[in-house]
């Protein structure tokens, strides 16, 4: 009995036999012990629980998203560097083939689901309520639940590499390889359950932000007076609502196949592996717009602010995003042109994909025209936005090349494709996220990130990005295929691969400079005492940095686009201090239910991964109990008194 238990622990539960995994075990254990010791030593547990873990404040939730996403970016980045090290030279033995498969799977999944998504959710949590003059999102409790679902989903996915083994079927998890018959063990279960839990949180966020934007705008802010970032989130929310349920179903069906022996995507008993590909990409293509449109919004804000001009072609910007979101739902098949469709079907999806380039190109020109005759200020945020334009355009142009179905037979699953999607995913979401971080950082924390370090990080990262990915286009055309764990010498690929690896490490260095910049600025950064460090144009800059709990002491009335820029020209801000008439403010109470309920999800999820139903059942009961407790809670608001508002506003220098 005991023997077999130990055998199970050593041979199935813990991943053993690889020194790198032992290193990871040790560093995870050390980091966890370190955190516990530090928090205990500083006596911060209560503070942590009361101020952060149970918070329903959109600003704090946004910050937690961003911290989690930065950590995940580190993990995804280490995965990337491991792959690049393995591929630096031919016939390397740094990673085995099995290990390489796991690493590209976790890298892709983490980068999309646990890096790009939470960064986007973080930025939208921070900026959207402030941009529309609201005091919180529509459903603050649900917002906290979304975050904790994402967090525990990410944790579940991440522990796979030390407990039980990582998934290895690629981030797209194609059937039948991802099915039980070919992929036994728990790795793929981790993918299915972890991503599912996070996905439910994303869907809830989509609903939350759609209602927030539709119903909670300040008086006078009609839809077409909204800031462009808010517009991008409105449209993104709609995409989330229509795309994510399909993924929820796809993941659930494959889980049912693997855990309960159904035959949705198997080869045996009439299952249809192609059905998985269709369901996956029906979500997967809109997903790339879910991570892309919000950063289009960020760039619009940043380019307008640092050109000191209003955005060019506002309405066209909006309609092109609407067009992208709709056409984005009818292009999914371009991911498998080569997998046996008729010519007519390929032609349709080829054309629909190419058409998306039109509204995207329109946006590029609008950004350029916004800068035209503007007084451009080269801040770090602006540099990221400027670099986005040419780098992203390269990704877009190669995307149109891939969209041509007959030509795709040549490019498909080659390094040309890998280069393409990194061009769009890095020059888009990653540049955009860094851009947004530098831009909104003072609003989040009340101090600025150091600009000199920021610019250094920008140049290192951006140049290395090109060194890393440009050669991939060439090596792809030379025949190197995707997901290869090694390659022979003498193919003419070696110099390109070696250069790519240098670039990859350069990007790692750029990331480290950003991390250093954050730490340095936290200690020594310049305070933002004005609340408006960039001479901003939208409402978030009209309130102190960091924003008080209730955001706006009095809700502003909006009469035009760029509401704050207009207000600044119209009135003397000093006068305003006198005129404010405060009223008590209702705010939602903090709640421990979101984190506890998500923890139960984690427990139930872990049980499902291992098919331990003795663990699934208490987890599921815990979830239901949390829901019932919440339903019976009636007293969930508190009131901020006028005196307290006055005290806060006076401390921020807003009241004489």
């Amino acid at each position, binding site marked *: 009995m005991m023997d077999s238990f130990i055998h199970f622990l050593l041979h199935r539960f813990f991943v053993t036999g690889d020194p790198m995994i032992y290193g990871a075990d040790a560093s995870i254990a050390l980091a966890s012990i370190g955190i516990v010791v530090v928090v205990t030593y500083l006596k911060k547990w209560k503070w942590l629980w009361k101020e952060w873990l149970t918070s329903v404040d959109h600003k704090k939730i946004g910050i937690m998203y961003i911290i989690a996403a930065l950590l995940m970016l580190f993990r995804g980045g280490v995965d990337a560097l491991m792959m690049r090290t393995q591929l630096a030279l031919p016939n390397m033995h740094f990673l085995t083939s099995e290990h390489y498969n796991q690493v590209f799977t976790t890298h892709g999944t983490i980068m999309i689901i646990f890096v790009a998504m939470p960064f986007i959710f973080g930025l939208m949590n921070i900026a959207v309520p402030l941009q529309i003059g609201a005091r919180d999102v529509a459903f603050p409790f649900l917002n906290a639940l979304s975050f904790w679902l994402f967090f525990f989903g990410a944790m579940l996915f991440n522990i796979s590499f030390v407990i039980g083994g990582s998934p290895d079927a690629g981030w797209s998890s194609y059937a039948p390889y991802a099915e039980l018959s070919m992929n036994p063990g728990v790795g793929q279960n981790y993918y299915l359950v972890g991503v599912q839990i996070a996905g439910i949180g994303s869907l809830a966020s989509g609903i939350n932000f759609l209602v927030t934007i539709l119903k909670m705008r300040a008086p006078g802010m009609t839809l077409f007076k909204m800031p462009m970032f808010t517009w991008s989130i409105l449209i993104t929310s709609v995409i989330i*609502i229509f795309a994510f349920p399909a993924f929820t179903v796809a993941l659930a069906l494959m889980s*049912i196949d693997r855990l309960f022996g159904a035959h949705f995507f198997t080869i045996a008993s009439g299952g249809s592996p192609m*059905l998985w590909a269709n369901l996956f990409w029906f979500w997967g293509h809109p997903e790339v717009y879910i991570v892309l449109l919000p950063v289009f919004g960020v760039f619009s804000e940043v380019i307008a602010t640092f050109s000191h001009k209003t955005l060019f072609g506002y309405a066209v910007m909006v309609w092109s995003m609407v067009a992208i979101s709709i056409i984005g739902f009818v292009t999914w098949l371009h991911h498998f042109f080569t997998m046996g469709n008729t010519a007519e079907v390929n032609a349709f999806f080829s054309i629909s994909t190419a058409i998306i380039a039109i509204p995207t190109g329109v946006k590029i020109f609008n950004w350029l025209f916004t800068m035209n005759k503007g007084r451009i200020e080269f801040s770090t945020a602006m540099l990221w936005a400027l670099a986005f334009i040419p780098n992203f355009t390269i990704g877009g142009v190669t995307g149109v090349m891939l969209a041509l179905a007959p030509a795709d037979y040549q490019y498909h699953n080659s390094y040309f494709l890998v280069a393409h999607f990194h061009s769009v995913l890095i020059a888009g979401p990653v540049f955009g996220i860094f851009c947004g971080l530098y831009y909104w950082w003072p609003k989040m924390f009340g101090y600025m990130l150091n600009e000199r370090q920021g610019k250094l990080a920008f140049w290192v990262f951006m140049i290395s990005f090109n060194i890393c990915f440009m050669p991939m286009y060439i090596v792809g055309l030379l025949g190197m295929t995707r997901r290869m764990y090694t390659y022979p010498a003498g193919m003419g690929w070696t110099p390109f691969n070696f250069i790519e690896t240098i670039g990859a490490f350069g990007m790692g260095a750029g990331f480290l400079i950003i991390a250093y910049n954050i730490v340095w600025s936290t200690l020594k950064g310049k305070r933002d005492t004005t609340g408006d460090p960039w001479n901003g144009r939208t409402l978030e800059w009209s309130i102190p940095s960091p924003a008080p709990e209730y955001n706006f002491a009095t809700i502003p009335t909006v009469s035009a686009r760029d509401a704050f820029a207009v207000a600044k020209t119209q009135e003397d801000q000093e006068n305003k201090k006198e005129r404010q008439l405060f*009223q*008590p403010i209702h705010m939602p109470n903090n709640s421990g239910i979101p984190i506890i309920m998500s923890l139960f999800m984690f427990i139930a999820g872990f049980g499902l991964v291992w098919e331990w139903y003795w663990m699934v059942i208490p987890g599921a009961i815990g979830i239901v109990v949390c829901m019932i407790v919440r339903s019976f809670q009636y007293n969930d608001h508190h009131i901020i008194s006028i005196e307290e508002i006055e005290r806060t506003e006076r401390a921020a220098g807003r009241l004489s």
Partner: protein
Amino acid sequence: MAQSPLRLHEKSRSSLPIEYSTPENDLRIVGFWIFLAAELVLFGTLFATYLVLQSHTAGGPAPKDLFEVGPVMIETIVLLVSSFTCGLSTIELRRHNKKGLIFWLIVTVLLGLVFIGFEVNEFYTYAAHEGATLSSSAFLSGFFVLLGTHGCHVSLGIIWITGLIIQIAKRGVTPVTARKAFIVGLYWHFLDVVWIFIYTAVYLTGWVM
């Protein structure tokens, strides 16, 4: 009056029905409609999956070997009637009639339980007598998961309405309980609509094909 964090520029709400009587209620009801849109996509995906796999019987039982008219008709009628009684509960809600509201909610729950009873029996019959289980064929996987998802939704609705009945009994018809009763009503009617699609896409086409 304290300001709500949610919306300030409120027109008078006194002319609206009780479930819409506060700005927060308004938000939640809109939010629930949007949630139903997401549910629509979820069921839409399951329907698409079922229709793709319907003919993939892998030598096992096909739809017309399996589906019986009798129990399916009973399930359908019971669920439709429960939707009607749920509607009656909303009428009582607007009359602020606590007793009537609770009465019709109880009837709705009981009808829901009858529906679930028949459905479980139907599944049991297929599995025990016809050997048709989740793992028999892709068609049956699609069938059990589509109907099972709907059945789970109905079961969750039963728990939800039961909890709500307790709250209404304790607190009476207030703006908050009224909003909850209204929202659960939307949910229940939605499940009824889904059933009509199931009846058409699964059973009717199954009998005809």
